């Protein structure tokens, strides 16, 4: 395996980690505010569908992306109303959203396009194009740094870079702004926020909506950047993987980047090495492709350190008497 192989694998890692990163940061905002969101998967799927549909209809990927965010926001609003205003069970609301998205995308897709739940193949401006960073071609020949810059960092779609920028942005919002302080507080002890005269519901809605925007980006990336159109169930459990990454990351933004890159790497390895020889045994390709899911189970089962979730997570806020 030479440098080029390594760079190709890492390049693919970055592409595959991006939707996970968006979804993971989305979950981070929501859970830090005390709203558990297992509906990431459904929101991502709905966004993937609507962004592909809108992009194929308008021929403009940015409009598609906006439509995807809209779909995700709508589902996020449902989750917000159910779990904040009506103090419902957040897990059940999330499951309902997943079912809703899984069914609706196929039914509506078939009604609109008649392609068995797919959307038409996206072409040209209907997809996110790869962006060459400045001077990529010029320094390609510099040893080591050249290929890293030109082949690994350069040549991704805009959403990849937006996703990477979201990491420091999230960190800054969370730890350097008033909103971040209140957001973290409301996930730990909403009564403290309430008695300080700040609206618990307002903060939680804000968090749920930010979550909606970010999962929207995750879904749009899946359908209009990673692939060229929507395919039924194309989120393929990435919403749940993002949740596992969130736990692995202990609900922190930079750790979230690390965790999602790890999952991306596993997926990239699985794609690249369909079969692998370990001594005399041939590891089947199915095993390689199952790697991210296996890691998810391991993390969720609590084998990787102790993670302390936000203390008020999953509990509706009711004023005490």
């Amino acid at each position, binding site marked *: 395996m030479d440098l080029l192989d390594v760079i190709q694998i890492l390049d693919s890692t970055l592409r595959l980690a991006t939707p996970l990163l968006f979804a993971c940061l989305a979950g981070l905002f929501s859970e830090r505010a005390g709203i558990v969101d297992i509906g990431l998967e459904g929101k991502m799927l709905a966004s993937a569908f609507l962004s592909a549909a809108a992009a194929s209809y308008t021929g403009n990927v940015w409009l598609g992306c906006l439509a995807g965010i809209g779909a995700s926001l709508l589902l996020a609003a449902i989750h917000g109303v159910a779990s904040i205003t009506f103090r419902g069970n957040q897990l059940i609301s999330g499951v309902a959203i997943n079912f809703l998205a899984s069914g609706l995308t196929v039914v509506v897709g078939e009604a609109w396009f008649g392609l068995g739940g797919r959307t038409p193949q996206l072409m040209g401006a209907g997809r996110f194009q790869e962006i060459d960073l400045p001077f990529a071609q010029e320094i390609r020949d510099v040893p080591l740094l050249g290929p890293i810059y030109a082949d690994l960092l350069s040549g991704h779609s805009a959403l990849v870079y937006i996703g990477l920028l979201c990491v420091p942005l999230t960190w800054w919002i969370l730890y350097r702004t008033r909103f971040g302080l209140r957001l973290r507080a409301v996930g730990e002890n909403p009564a403290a926020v309430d008695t300080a*005269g700040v609206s618990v519901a307002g903060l939680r809605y804000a968090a749920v909506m930010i979550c909606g925007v970010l999962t929207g980006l995750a879904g749009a990336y899946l359908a209009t950047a990673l692939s060229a159109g929507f395919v039924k169930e194309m989120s393929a459990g990435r919403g749940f993987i993002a949740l596992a990454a969130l736990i692995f990351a202990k609900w922190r933004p930079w750790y979230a980047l690390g965790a999602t890159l790890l999952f991306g790497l596993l997926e990239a390895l699985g794609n690249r090495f369909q079969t692998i020889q370990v001594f005399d045994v041939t590891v089947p390709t199915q095993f390689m492709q199952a790697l991210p899911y296996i890691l998810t189970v391991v993390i969720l089962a609590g084998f990787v350190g102790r993670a302390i979730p936000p203390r008020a997570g999953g509990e509706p806020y009711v004023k005490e008497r």
Partner: protein
Amino acid sequence: MSPAGNGGDAALAIELRGISKAFGPVQANRDISIQVRRGTIHGIIGENGAGKSTLMSILYGFYRADAGEILIGGRRVEIPDSQAAIRAGIGMVFQHFKLVENFTVLENVVLGAEDGRLLKPSLAKARRLLKQLADDYEMDVDPEAVIEDLGVGQQQRVEILKALYREADILILDEPTGVLTPAEADHLFRILRGLRDEGKTIILITHKLREIMEITDTVSVMRRGEMTATVRTAETSPEELAELMVGRKVLLRVDKAPATPRDVVLEVRNLRVVDEQKVERLRGIDLTIRRGEILGIAGVSGNGQSELLEVLGGYANGTGTIRMNGREIDLTGSASNARTRRARGIAHVPEDRQREGLVMDYSAWENVAFGYHSDPRFSSGLFMDHAAMRADCDDKMHRFDVRPPDPTLAAKNFSGGNQQKIVLAREIERNPDLLMIGQPTRGVDIGAIEFIHEQIVALRDQGKAILLVSVELDEIMALSDRIAVMFDGRIMGERLPDETDQRELGLLMAGMAGEAA
């Protein structure tokens, strides 16, 4: 908001006029009026459930009063939410602190009172101010310390700092010493005196007479949702306050023959309970109850009566010896629970019937069957016999005069008295050797009180042992064959109802044993 005038007096920090608040059928506050002068420490004393916390929650914008008005500094104000209360200059230190455990002191102080969107300048300003406040009021806390690493005394100081940071002029403290050691409480009192001397107004809610006497300038007494008196602390005494708290209502006459106590049913030796905060709530209780007698436990609530009932009822842990009909009860093992207690002949009508005695959303028949659902009459193998349970409930409801006698009605839809009759019917009908009954008539109307008292006496005459815990002195005097007075986790003394009076019991309840004993 109406302008000043309006009869308001600017020398008063707070004036409440005719505040009323009901939660469903429960009148938590009834026509409360109170005046607190600027720069004083005002105590509000009353039993648990007297309505103190509700009143303060109204002041802090947690609830809206059904009627009445609030004047701050002589001006009428509306307080629809906590933000409005903070703007009006009110700061509140809750009994259960409202702190974010994994935040620093600084972050907690700043939360909700930041100066702009970015944190850095707010935190810097707060750091300066905290240092100054710490110097002024002897409230040394490290601003960078994380809350969960601090002791409760320090956490409480953070709560006070939070209020001062918001420039509160009026500081309300709800049962502030409940979690403090005596030394910490003394420190708190020094801080409070310092604040008063700076011109702040302090309202101290407590049920501890000693604190009222030690620190307040004036004191109001609440009982059953009403403000019964407001007096200057210097002109009153603990006994008088105890009497006002407990109340002298219309003397209830209970017709009962002299008791004929027989063999010992319950024997308690050196019973101790330490709560989660490591505070000793029971400090060596000894008691004996015989068949055919009623032992009444008097005392201001919060002096260990609840813990006593909980340990005897099997849902709290304690150390010591409890013998039931001569056989020791296991207090430590996994078999120490309410079910095994019932099997040994102990029935329990808990103090807080709405939380411990009933499931409010469940129907009457379900509630009547609780705890006895494995009774062979109610279960046929794997399944429960609902029809039998309903019939049983229907029968009990008629015999105990529960109104309306509808087994399918949810417990929350009955009045307090009828709820109590449901619990009583369930426990008495099981033919226990010992009936423990806590606050049998709290929140119960007069007619039901009489009925409940008759049932208790009838049970005694059948040869049962009865442990009665009540904060109503009249009830204790009328029903008990012997009276034990609890104070601060101990039994201060035992008296016979014919040989004592309210005054002597009041002294014992205030913890003054020496002269009386």
